[in-house]
């Protein structure tokens, strides 16, 4: 579904991503892990078009993403959340989710015409309620995003990404700031959306999430892939232990 070949990106003389190949299969939960500064977020930024690659190809279902603007890429069916929260802080929870549907319905001049897309709007309403429900935001739906706590904002961002109805969702550290109980709920949530046929590309440092739900894990360091495999393989991979996990101990679930 997503095919990345020989991708490279430099910042100020530093190779942040160098010659990375990545293959994401449809309907999977594909995790990316790696030390801080390994280039994971940069990879997301490259996929979603916020950064332009120095070299290499990114293909999504045959479409070459390299020359596309971020909003085009979003419209192709790729949505994401942000590691540093970027909510529409003056909008309410509900409005934020509604903005997430931007890929599904035109927000342009045609929206000035009343009653256009009536059916579509209705179905989007339903979907919105469902997400509100799933994320337990019903009580806070009318609260401005700025008045949520960190963890709540984090959850809202995930909800917004999910609302887009995208085929591929990129989640950057969704569990950061959630307590174990909540990340367990998050696991359920991610599995649910996967079961709805959505592909998930996940960056996460919380191994209780990664190891439990990933179908495949890619480990990168210094912008290069150092390992790839099932969670079981990765857990015992020496290079990964050395660079990322540290000595093997009680991560076991």
């Amino acid at each position, binding site marked *: 579904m997503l095919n990345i070949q020989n991708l490279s990106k430099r910042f100020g003389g530093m190779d942040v991503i160098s010659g990375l190949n990545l293959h994401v299969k449809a309907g999977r939960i594909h995790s990316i892990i790696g030390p801080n500064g390994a280039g994971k*977020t940069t990879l997301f*930024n490259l996929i979603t078009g*916020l950064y332009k690659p120095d070299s290499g190809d990114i293909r999504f279902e045959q479409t070459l993403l390299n020359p596309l603007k971020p909003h085009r890429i979003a419209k192709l069916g790729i949505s994401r959340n*942000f590691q*540093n929260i*970027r909510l529409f802080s003056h909008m309410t929870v509900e409005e934020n989710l509604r903005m997430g549907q931007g890929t599904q319905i035109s927000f342009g001049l045609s929206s000035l015409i009343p009653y256009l897309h009536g059916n579509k709007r209705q179905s989007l309403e339903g979907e919105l309620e469902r997400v509100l429900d799933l994320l337990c935001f019903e009580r806070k739906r009318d609260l401005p995003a700025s008045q949520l706590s960190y963890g709540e904002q984090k959850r809202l961002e995930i909800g917004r990404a999910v609302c887009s109805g995208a085929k591929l969702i990129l989640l950057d550290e969704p569990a950061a700031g959630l307590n174990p109980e909540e990340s367990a709920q998050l696991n359920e949530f991610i599995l649910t959306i996967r079961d709805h046929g959505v592909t998930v590309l996940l960056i996460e440092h919380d191994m209780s999430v990664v190891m439990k739900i990933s179908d495949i894990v890619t480990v990168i360091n210094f912008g290069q892939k150092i390992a790839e495999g099932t969670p079981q393989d990765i857990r015992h991979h020496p290079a990964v232990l050395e660079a990322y996990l540290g000595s093997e101990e009680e991560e076991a679930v």
Partner: protein
Amino acid sequence: MELIQQLINGLLQGSLYSLLAIGFTLIFGVLSMMNLAHSEVFMTSGIMVYILIDKVHLPLYAAVPIVLAGSIALGMVIELVSFRPIRRDYHYAPLASTIALGIVISELVVNLSGSDAKSVPSVIHLSNLQIGEVLISSPQMILLLVSLVSMLGLSYIMKSTKLGRSMRALSESETAAKLLGVHVRFVVVSTFVLASLLAAVAGMLYAIRFETVSPFMGTMVGLKGLAVMIIGGLGNIRGAMIGGILMGLLEVMAIALPLGLTEYADAVVWGMLILILLFRPTGLMGSSVQTERV
């Protein structure tokens, strides 16, 4: 020869813009908000010079400290009423507030001293410097030196001192600065004091050079100062200096060169501003390194 004279004219004319822009940029650099009443401090200090010398008949050396003190007080008042009550989230509010305050200040001056321009008696006659055929106005020369010195001094302060770091921290985030132990009020007030001092010096030297002050003299010069700040890059003190000189030179050259642009001198200046922004959206010396991570 004429060209050299014109270059000097431009340099000197620009130094006034520089000095004002340094004040503008200093305040922006700390608060990330604009003080559009800053040019009224310049105007008021000019008017104060006139009142103290022409009406109160003080000698210049006695007038100077009073003007400086008055301007600092005015700067502090501006801070008190237009900035202190307003939280960062509402960064537009000081725009309206300081414009309105500027109106209040200039209308007060008009009501108290009339709307006419006033001639300042030449108590000290700083004679012009004549080098060959080139004529250099001494007060403007001083203005240029003051701008240079304050640029160097302030750049150093901003870069390498505790106060400077506090200022920069404050400009990015008030909460973060507080958590790091920055005494917010002290830093803000010091900034206004510094900026007002510069404006006062500019106002006084202007009064001495042109021997005329008026309640409206802040408007046009202030607008140019604003443009200069933008040309240099918000918060960049060296940028403000260079921008001012550039603006002065350009203004003079629009008149001096036989391009038929005299009537369009202003358009040339603003055109340059727009051009610069097109190619460098954050000014000549504004940081182009993208620090906003996604």
